[in-house]
């Protein structure tokens, strides 16, 4: 009897959060799934069970182009960010004197807290034709005419890399700092040089941290609308941008829903591909 009462009070505590999640997350999600199987006839919505929207993704070039563009940008960003962040995390963990370490880490991730919109605008400022980078390059005599940097894929990738280098530095640093120095000493004692130690000892041990950070990068990058919209200059559209176009101008909710489902499918595939090394509980 007391066990029964214990259960009832227990569920009483959990119920508000569960009901909130069901009402405002699960239900909308299911409705969105159903919406992806509906169709638009002119401006009226017809509920049903059709895979028309998904077929359209394969047929219409601007739709599958968007999926390709999203994948290309996301993969580039993930690889470049890991390559830039690893040495930074390494230096902070092993080269910076211990009493400055916390400060160095804090400083290297502080701009992480600028809002998304403001951060992308700040990059627009830096990369504009009249901006800081062009003025500096002209001042140094490296170029004579300003180069187009803003409103390109390069700008989108730069904006993303800036954000994710900070995120990855944090996850890789957390991994590096946990390594016992004994591993390195043992490898050195056994005659490995610095490169061999890194290749055969440190890198395999830090792989979970790298993969976890890379997975987060992939997920956040492929779902972002703001950065490509502000910095990419509408020359090529990513999936989130196409979703927003469907919502705005055309009010085509079914197609937008189908694109959202495809986006989730890609993230699920990325998860399955990296699941072996993922340590999401360690974040």
């Amino acid at each position, binding site marked *: 009897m007391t066990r029964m009462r214990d259960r009832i009070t227990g569920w009483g505590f*959990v119920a508000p959060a*569960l009901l909130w999640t069901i009402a405002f997350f699960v239900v909308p999600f299911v409705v969105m799934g159903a919406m992806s199987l509906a169709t638009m006839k002119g401006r009226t919505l017809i509920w049903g069970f059709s895979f028309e929207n998904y077929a359209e993704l394969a047929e219409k070039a601007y739709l599958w182009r968007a999926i390709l563009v999203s994948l290309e940008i996301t993969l580039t960003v993930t690889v470049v960010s890991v390559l830039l962040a690893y040495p930074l995390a390494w230096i902070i963990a092993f080269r910076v004197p211990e009493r400055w370490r916390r400060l160095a880490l804090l400083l290297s991730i502080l701009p992480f807290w600028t809002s998304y919109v403001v951060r992308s605008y700040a990059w627009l*400022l830096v990369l504009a034709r009249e901006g800081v980078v062009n003025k500096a390059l002209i001042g140094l005599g490296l170029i004579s005419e300003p180069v187009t940097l803003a409103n390109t894929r390069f700008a989108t990738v730069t904006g993303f890399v800036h954000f994710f280098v900070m995120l990855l530095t944090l996850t890789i640093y957390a991994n590096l700092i946990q390594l016992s120095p004994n591993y390195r000493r043992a490898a050195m004692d056994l005659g490995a040089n610095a490169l061999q130690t890194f290749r055969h000892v440190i890198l395999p041990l830090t792989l979970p941290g790298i993969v976890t950070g890379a997975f987060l990068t992939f997920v956040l990058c492929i779902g972002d609308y703001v950065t490509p919209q502000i910095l990419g200059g509408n020359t090529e559209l990513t999936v989130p941008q196409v979703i927003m176009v469907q919502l705005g101008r055309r009010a085509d909710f079914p197609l937008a829903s189908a694109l959202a489902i495809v986006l989730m499918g890609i993230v699920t595939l990325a998860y399955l591909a990296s699941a072996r090394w993922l340590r999401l509980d360690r974040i």
Partner: protein
Amino acid sequence: MMRALPWAYLLAAFVFIYLPVGALVLFSFQSGSLPVPPFNGPSLRWYGEILGDADLMEALRNSLFVAFGSSSVAVSLGFLAAYGLARHVLPGSVFARGLLIAPLTVSYLIVGLGLLIVLTRSGLGLSLWTAGIGHVVINLPLAFAIIYASMGAQQQNAERAARDLGANEAQVIGLITVPILLPSIAAAFFLSVTLSWDEFIISFLLTRFDVTLPVEIWSLLRSGLSPRLNAIGSLVFLISITVVLFLEILVFRRRK
């Protein structure tokens, strides 16, 4: 030469990391009307202008309202759920935990899109309240996870002792559990506040006439580069940093 290499890399990395923020803040003090070199200032002209702008200040108040309101709800619900799951033996608790964490795995755009469809289909309007509902959805999993992770066996002993001494459940929670868990509750709250304060896409999809600050900034972006945007961006950054540093001092210093 080789010894200097790490320091050169560190310097280059910091230049890259601080370049946009530096340009943002520096040219917010520009006295001319374009936020690009050469710098002619310093001047507080643009700060004066944004502080006198009724729309921006309205949006700023809306943002604070949504951030603190949604975080209070998210942390309260998250705390209750964590308490229920950590202190009561419940069948199906693995499923409940999974469901509570699930929104973390879905991008904000999709959370917003789902809510937008339901809200417009059911004829409920869009407002600051609906944006707040969306922010609770994304912050509840974090608040729950942070508080749940800090509910250890040690506190449970203190709770049992209180119960043996005749405290009822409400007294146990109010006098024992909450005070002991205050650092992680505060961490969850301020993290939630910063995330909501900066959040754009859900607010963009779910507000209509009254908007939050990131949405207002978004609409100003259409008119191109302007020191006004630099000033408001710097102000937003300053507020975020204040909350983060507050969190660092309040929560993490204590742990040592």
